[in-house]
């Protein structure tokens, strides 16, 4: 499984404002994003916002063998973004964006967690990733 992380790319204020707007939708309702019709030379980008104590969206679907860029920002404080089987583990800082290129090599269900402690609801901050054939 190929994964690369481009850390801490500074974004413009406009982009950040957009990310924060996404993050306002916070608790519980499941938000789904699926990758489809991806050109491997130009991977699809899925924007993800971290905010205590949720990721938005909190469910995404990827295709086995197809690269995708997870573009992660934080709306409030530093969070973690970690999945051992998908092979990434990085901090997500406020005011920056982190691009993680993932090419899943096995179908299945995976969990991404925040592994940078962010408060008493930290243990429930996670995102589900479904990889289909």
């Amino acid at each position, binding site marked *: 499984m190929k994964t690369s992380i481009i850390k801490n790319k500074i974004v413009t204020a406009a982009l950040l404002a957009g990310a924060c707007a996404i993050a306002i939708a916070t608790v519980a309702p499941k938000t789904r994003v699926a990758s489809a019709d991806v050109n491997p030379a130009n991977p699809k980008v899925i924007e993800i916002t971290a905010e205590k104590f949720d990721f938005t969206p909190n469910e995404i679907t990827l295709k086995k063998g197809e690269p995708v860029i997870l573009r992660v920002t934080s709306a409030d404080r530093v969070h973690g973004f970690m999945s051992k089987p998908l092979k990434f583990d990085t901090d997500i800082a406020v005011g920056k964006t982190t691009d993680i290129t993932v090419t899943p090599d096995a179908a299945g269900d995976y969990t991404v*967690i925040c*592994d940078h*402690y962010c408060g008493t609801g930290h243990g*429930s901050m996670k995102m589900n990733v479904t990889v289909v054939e």
Partner: protein
Amino acid sequence: METKLDRRSFLRVTGTALGIGALYSVFPTLTRSAGAGAEGITRTLAELNGEAPAPFSFIQLSDTHVGFNGPPDPLGTKAFENAVATINGLKHRPDLVIVTGDLTHDADSPDEHAKRFKLFKEISGKIGRGAQIKVVPGENDAALDGGDMFRQFMGPTHYSFDHRGVHFIALDNVSAGRPAVGAEQLAWMKSDLARFPKTAPIIVFTHRPLFDLKPEWEWFTSDGDDVMNALAPYENVTVLYGHIHRENFHQAGTTKMYAARSLIFAFPDPVTAPAKKPAPFDKAQPFKNLGIRRINGNARGGDLQIEEVELATAEYSGTVGMDQMLKHGSNDAKDE
């Protein structure tokens, strides 16, 4: 002259972190067995540590979460207080108690968090007869402020000391915010260990597991492999940790790693449970899964004698007793 030593004749750390705490019996068999080599090592360690190894026992407590008070466990600090009473009731009281993190439950307000540290010190201070209490932080204690408040109330987040000929290392894998020890602390640990022979008895205590027990439940340390690699040359290493609120045993090479139960509620079996949800409170058995396991070794390293010691619930029996126990406010009840 280099003194060689058969591992079997050197030291046995017998124990497993079970119950509300665990009583570890340390039996350096060389102190009991005959042989010139054993005497030589005893002298060597006495020179290194200032104290030769001698049989002793100690207690491990973990995850007291002082301040947590609500579902699933409405008992607040009752199990912690009961553990202290149980320790004080032991015929042979230990002179060392270690606490492997999450002394307090995190609070949004620094003032409230400070109160919780004060209450932890008040309760743990009742452990009698001058027992040393050595602690490491959990993420609830130290991850939001980099360990500032922990240091204010409890002292450094990592350190080492010698106790009856055994070298103890307190390792902090929480205050970076992430489950990590970090390069600086790792370098310190290597330097700290450098003066010891490879056969030295070493006990590392920390909060999170140093191996990938269940990463998707955050039961891991990201640079745990680096720590284990640094410990690998040492033949007599035991790691004691908490965080997972249940018993666990894992061995890597010659290093044995034991997790302790918590003093607040249990987490499920990571192999079979679909999610990390606290075990529900059982009013009929308020201290279910809590208790002390006493482990006694023997000088020849034979079978271990294990004795389960349940927490007494007599004083809370009946409706009145239960109501008294349940008279706690309810606040931030989360899954950890």
